[in-house]
């Protein structure tokens, strides 16, 4: 392995929400909307005497991607686990509504979130619902929406649904996507259901590779900002997922096949085996390019 390769990489996972945007968009092109100087912070966190963030944990704005205008939002996973509260959610909704009105080349959602922010529970749930509706409304207005999942907190809860409402999802192997996250699953159903400290099991289940193989993610990337940038631009270019009956019926058949084929799997590796991967136990060890070659014939769906 060349040492240069390791050194030159700028980790997407490690970057802050702002750094991710700066690395993703054309240099210096990002213009933030309702930026931190406006101090639109969460009144609900203040009521509980908890620290606020000037941007409530999400950066939204406009910029260029390979010269084309895009809108983008980036969640800060390390602030309240990227949880969606009233203000945080409203910023996402406003951005998506702006997209439906302005018709940019597309919208990028850099998701890094556990879902609803528990400290604003009910408001968070409604906000996530509004985000979901807004994603669909933007798509209905023919503005492609692309979700990027590669942050340290993954993408869980209702935002795990929201990610899959987008036209496309790009993930790194380190990214995680699901609805009931490992900690919640362990707490609710017990450690016998899932041991959240078993990192290999957690990533086998929620991680980018499994999602890619299922067709839940459209691209599987290295944990590298530049890789995300390239993938985002490409996914905006390839045709959007049409919001029509034909497309939905196609997806419906695919989801039905998935249930029939893999419904009995007790572990993601059984899915890989059933899908025809030759050495499923080796998959977690492979670097992204090798992995893509290894599963090329076994992958179900996705674009």
């Amino acid at each position: 392995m060349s040492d240069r390769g390791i050194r030159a990489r700028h980790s997407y996972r490690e970057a802050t929400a702002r750094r991710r945007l700066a690395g993703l968009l054309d240099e210096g092109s990002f213009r933030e909307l309702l930026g931190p100087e406006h101090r639109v912070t969460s009144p609900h966190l203040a009521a509980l005497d908890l620290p606020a963030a000037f941007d409530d944990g999400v950066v939204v704005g406009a910029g260029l991607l390979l010269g084309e205008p895009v809108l983008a939002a980036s969640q800060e996973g390390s602030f309240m686990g990227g949880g969606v509260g009233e203000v945080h959610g409203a910023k996402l909704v406003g951005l998506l509504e702006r997209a439906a009105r302005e018709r940019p080349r597309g919208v990028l959602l850099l998701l890094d979130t556990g879902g609803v922010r528990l400290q604003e529970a009910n408001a968070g749930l409604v906000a996530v619902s509004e985000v979901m509706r807004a994603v669909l409304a933007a798509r209905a207005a023919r503005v492609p929406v692309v979700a990027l999942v590669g942050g340290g907190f993954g993408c869980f809860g209702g935002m795990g649904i929201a990610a899959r409402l987008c036209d496309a999802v790009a993930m790194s192997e380190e990214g995680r996507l699901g609805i009931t996250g490992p900690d919640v699953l362990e707490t609710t159903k017990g450690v016998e259901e899932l041991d959240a400290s078993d990192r290999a099991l957690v990533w086998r289940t929620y991680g980018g590779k499994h999602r890619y193989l299922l067709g839940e993610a459209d691209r599987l990337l290295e944990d590298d900002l530049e890789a995300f940038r390239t993938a985002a631009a490409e996914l905006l270019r390839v045709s959007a997922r049409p919001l029509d009956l034909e497309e939905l019926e196609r997806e419906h058949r695919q989801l039905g096949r998935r249930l029939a084929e893999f419904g009995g799997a007790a572990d993601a590796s059984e899915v890989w085996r059933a899908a025809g991967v030759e050495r499923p136990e080796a998959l977690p060890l492979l670097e992204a390019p090798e992995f893509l070659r290894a599963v090329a014939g076994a992958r179900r769906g996705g674009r």
Partner: protein
Amino acid sequence: MSRTWDQARRDRARRLARARGVSPEKWVDPQRATALLEALLEPGDRVCLEGDNQKQADFLARALSRVDPARVRDLHLVLSVLALPEHVELFERGIARRLDFSFSGPQAVRLAQLAGAGRIEIGAIHTYLELYARYFVDLTPRVALVAALAADREGNLYTGPNTEDTPAIVEATAFRDGVVVAQVNEERERLPRVDIPGGWVDFVVRAPTPSTIEPLFTRDPAQVSEVQVLMAMMVVKGIYAEYGVNRLNHGIGFDTAAIELLLPTYGEELGLKGKVCQHWALNPHPTLIPAIESGFVRSVHAFGSELGMEAYVAARPDVFFTGPDGSLRSNRAFSQTAGHYACDLFIGSTLQVDLAGNSSTATASRIAGFGGAPNMGADARGRRHSSPAWLRAGRESARPGTMPRGRKLVVQLLETFREHMEPAFVERLDAWELARAMKMELPPVMVYGDDVSHIVTEEGIANLLLCRTAEERAEAIRGVAGYTPLGRARSVRAVENLRDQGIVRRPEDLGIDKRRATRDLLAARSVKDLVRWSGGLYDPPRRFRSW
């Protein structure tokens, strides 16, 4: 008057005769292990139950904890690391009463409770080398219970990469007519190498489960902070480059891991390859892989091994000490000796430092012990050979009119505040309070102030070698103590004065741009990166994987 000169040998023969009643063969039925120990042991015996930093004779510990206390009691336990719950149980059940040891790690709290309740008599807390030394002087075991990876029919032992304490223990026991019992994971027809000859071993028992080994030296690069990167930059540029440090030992904290991860990037940029950090007394730290791969490191001798590093070590025999099969041969006694006498520098993190530079990791309500750090972190007064780093340190600390000599570099790394805003610089070490509460003769100091050459914090480096008076030394320490109460009580003028003399050096004095202190400077930022650097040879334990 006639006198018998072989009482110990006769005693040994009697014990073996009793034991043969339980197991006529050298290979003992695992289910008879406790019976064997009951036959071998007598009340008050001094027993070494091998408990190393990593390797544990856990099956024999369990067997010993099940003996009948009416038959076997009041043992004097000698071992370097008291880590297992069974170790503590021996005292709770009255099987053992007295203890001489080095380090207690995970059992530090229970140990303090037992000592407080008078259930345990602590002889002394040693450094590793002191304890091994006493095995050959006045703490020779009557019976040693040791652990190895495999044995053959004759009882030759193969320890695998974690040889650690075994040679020191068996040598002391076997040659003073003691009895040696070994637990092994498996029997093999042919061993890859013989670490302990079968003639020194009396009984061998196959443990039903492999002996436990903990990955104590694996530091996930993902946890290294920016502040640690900054401190590591200061160490590389302000100490390693300045003194030309070529033989060294590192502690096991994240701050020293940061230094290891900076060598291929920042070190390379400073042109240090081939000039510093070529020879190490160090366990096979995974975070050293990038420095090895980029050609910084020429040799590493290890105290013990590290889980997951087996294939990597085997593939780098020019760097590591290995047997013909490629497996690491470690040896804690020799590596400690190497660290003490053959290294020019020791650097490690600590929790508390006082104004005299004394440092301690002791906290009230825990008896953690010393391990090996004090052997590394002490000037080797008996050293006579010279090296450029040793000579320069000696020159810096020389007083007019004294005989010129060299000096070891002993560097303590710490951030000025610990978690929860606990100041790391204190008027009085917690060690004093621990000594009072536990009725110890001395406060447990890890590294004494007069052995320390440099203190490094995020604020800068204090070079204590250059200080001429106790006051100057205290002011230099205040000069890097940041915003702690001791730091804020500094005389700004005096500290500026020390800066002019190069006694206190800030990052800017060293030409270090603090903005570069980001994690991007680390050669590896995740365990996965380490696997990449190793070309897939490093096989990290599960808890460090996300794949």
